[in-house]
């Protein structure tokens, strides 16, 4: 078992994040010293070119903070962020500007990120113009029109203002803006949360097609486990600021080694329409102001072992070497399945396909 940094075994990652932490100071009353809220706590992961890493976890566990921090929209407290070989952790805003086009975000709350005084045409075209991505203004406006059509809005949308649109239409304007500049990496923070399933399918197809064509990488945050399972190559499960399980999407979604992943995915509505009560979480998460000693999940875990889980924090560890499936738990679920089998499941590659 190895607890070393998580790195792809071959090829260069586009994004490499090491032991990243984000602490927010929180005041409670005037006289008390501020406490710190550990929104992200020692998180490491990588994303390869053309890859989607899904990020799931309960409300408030730190997903949006993590997504914004890797783009340097929130200041990291500790750790390292390397984008395409360049350490961007402490780059000045000026030095980072040339990278801004390549790294985009679709915010969870898109409306507050759209300038109310600009038309859709201006919002979506802004990046193209600023970065001179088009040779002629004709080409620029064609790109804008194409992008707006691709997110399912009609040409009449182009000259209207954000407040004239519905919630889901605004979300699609934000998606068009992020994709218009042909980024290499996009943080998609709940990109389809305001969309009905038919428009959602249109957006998911668009994201996937762009990935096939241009090798874009996505950090894909969503509460919809079905969508995350469908879109991701790998999935990371977050709990209270830490990644507790990460691996190939199928492995994580089907094996659910961490007791928390069990609880999270166990709450999926059942395919067969069986009305039996779903398994949800028992108890309540600890406060992020005072993260517990030991495993973050112990207070709600049925398998917690006294003297171990409350003392020592389990590392994110690859249990079957070569499986790329890591879990931070002393008592992972379904360990009987983990005995090395001669006929390894075909879906576990011995090493990831090499780049290029």
């Amino acid at each position, binding site marked *: 078992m190895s607890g070393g940094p998580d790195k792809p075994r071959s090829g260069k990652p586009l994004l490499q994040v090491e032991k990243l932490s984000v602490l927010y100071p929180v005041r409670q009353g005037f006289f008390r010293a501020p406490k710190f809220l550990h929104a992200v706590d020692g998180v490491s992961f990588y994303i390869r070119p053309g890859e989607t890493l899904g990020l799931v976890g309960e409300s408030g566990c730190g997903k949006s903070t993590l997504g914004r921090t890797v783009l340097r929209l929130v200041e990291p407290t500790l750790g390292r962020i390397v984008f395409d070989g360049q350490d961007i952790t402490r780059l000045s805003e000026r030095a980072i500007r040339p990278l801004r086009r390549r790294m985009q975000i679709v915010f969870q709350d898109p409306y507050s990120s759209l300038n109310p005084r600009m038309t859709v045409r201006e919002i979506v075209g802004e990046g193209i113009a600023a970065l001179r991505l088009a040779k002629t203004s004709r080409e620029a406006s064609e790109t804008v029109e194409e992008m707006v059509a691709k997110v399912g809005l009609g040409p009449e949308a182009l000259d209207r203002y954000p407040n004239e649109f519905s919630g889901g239409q605004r979300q699609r304007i934000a998606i068009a803006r992020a994709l218009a500049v042909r980024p290499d990496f996009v943080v998609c923070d709940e990109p389809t949360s305001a969309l009905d399933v*038919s428009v959602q399918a249109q957006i998911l197809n668009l994201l996937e097609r762009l990935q096939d064509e241009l090798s874009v990488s996505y950090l894909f945050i969503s509460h919809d486990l079905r969508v995350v399972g*469908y879109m991701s190559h790998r999935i990371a499960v977050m709990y209270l600021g830490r990644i507790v399980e990460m691996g190939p999407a199928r492995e994580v979604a089907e094996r659910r080694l961490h007791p928390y992943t069990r609880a999270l995915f166990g709450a999926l509505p059942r395919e067969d329409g069986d009305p039996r009560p779903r398994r949800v*979480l028992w108890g309540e998460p600890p406060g992020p102001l005072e993260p517990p000693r030991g495993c973050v999940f112990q207070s709600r875990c049925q398998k917690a072992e006294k003297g171990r889980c409350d003392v020592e924090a389990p590392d994110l560890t690859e249990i079957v070497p070569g499986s790329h499936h890591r879990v931070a738990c002393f008592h992972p679920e379904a360990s009987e399945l983990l005995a090395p089998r001669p006929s390894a499941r075909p879906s576990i590659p011995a090493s990831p396909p090499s780049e290029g």
Partner: protein
Amino acid sequence: MTSPPLLSVRDLAVSFATAEGTSVKALDGVSFDVPQGKTVGLVGESGCGKTVTALSILRLLPTPSARIDRGAIVFQGEDLLTLPERAMRQVRGGKIGMVFQEPLTALTPVYSVGAQIMEAIRLHERMSRKEARARALALLHRVGFPRPDERFDSYPHELSGGMRQRVLLAMALAAPPRLLVADEPTSALDMALRAQIMALLADQARELGMSLLVITHDLPFVAEIAHELVVLYAGKVVETGPPSRVLASPRHPYTQALVRSVPPAGSFRTRGEKRKALPTLEGSLPDPRRSPGGCAFAPRCPEVMDRCREEAPPLFEAEGGRDVVRCFLQGGAA
């Protein structure tokens, strides 16, 4: 005899004046009822008019661009559209509560969330600050904040997306409303919280006889919570019925397309491998500035017939008169 519905929306039509000087039809003759103590789900494609319907009920449409062209919204026997603004202010946050679609824009950035919930409580009931604070903490606990005192003094921007959404719900329940209008109340919530909020809403409905108009694109959620489903397309009702029937055997071609687009479970990706795209509806909602004759769904409809392009289909009865569907295919040869 059945008692009259708590809320009855009748032939509601709303349009917007745009910056270019044209007019956009957002709703075009929408009618439905919300019976006493029941839950009605309003679903449909992004941009079809769900939020405009909700805002019309609360009379919160943006002025001066929005105009109610015709219709009535009868609540407890009174047409809300003719009520003086002062009386309407009593209705809002009193008898009718609202959870807005975009929490960040609906909350005031400069007040703590605790202060905002306390204010919502004290607006409709006289009580001391101390009592109001205790009530606010209890409400926060009910919407899934295990240690509400730690969050009481937080400002909206210090909360996560899902937390803000739940704060809005707590505010809407501050004075138990007769009718709760909830616009996407669970879109930012994980499965476990969603189940908790669903249970909370069901309890409120049972214990207090609250009625609920819930707007959502979360079909499994609405299937579980709603008694009746209303499907909108381009500002018109195209199908109604109990969710079990509508989702299992949809009758309108739009509803059929909607139900089909759910991504399949158990389909996983391999890097560098292309796969078949999800089924979608080609095209987009019709240009709301123009109102072509014929069925609004005709340009995208897989079943379209010549007649659909010339004539607008009325609502036909289906399921022995229990439900309605706006499609010629339901009207038989008539």
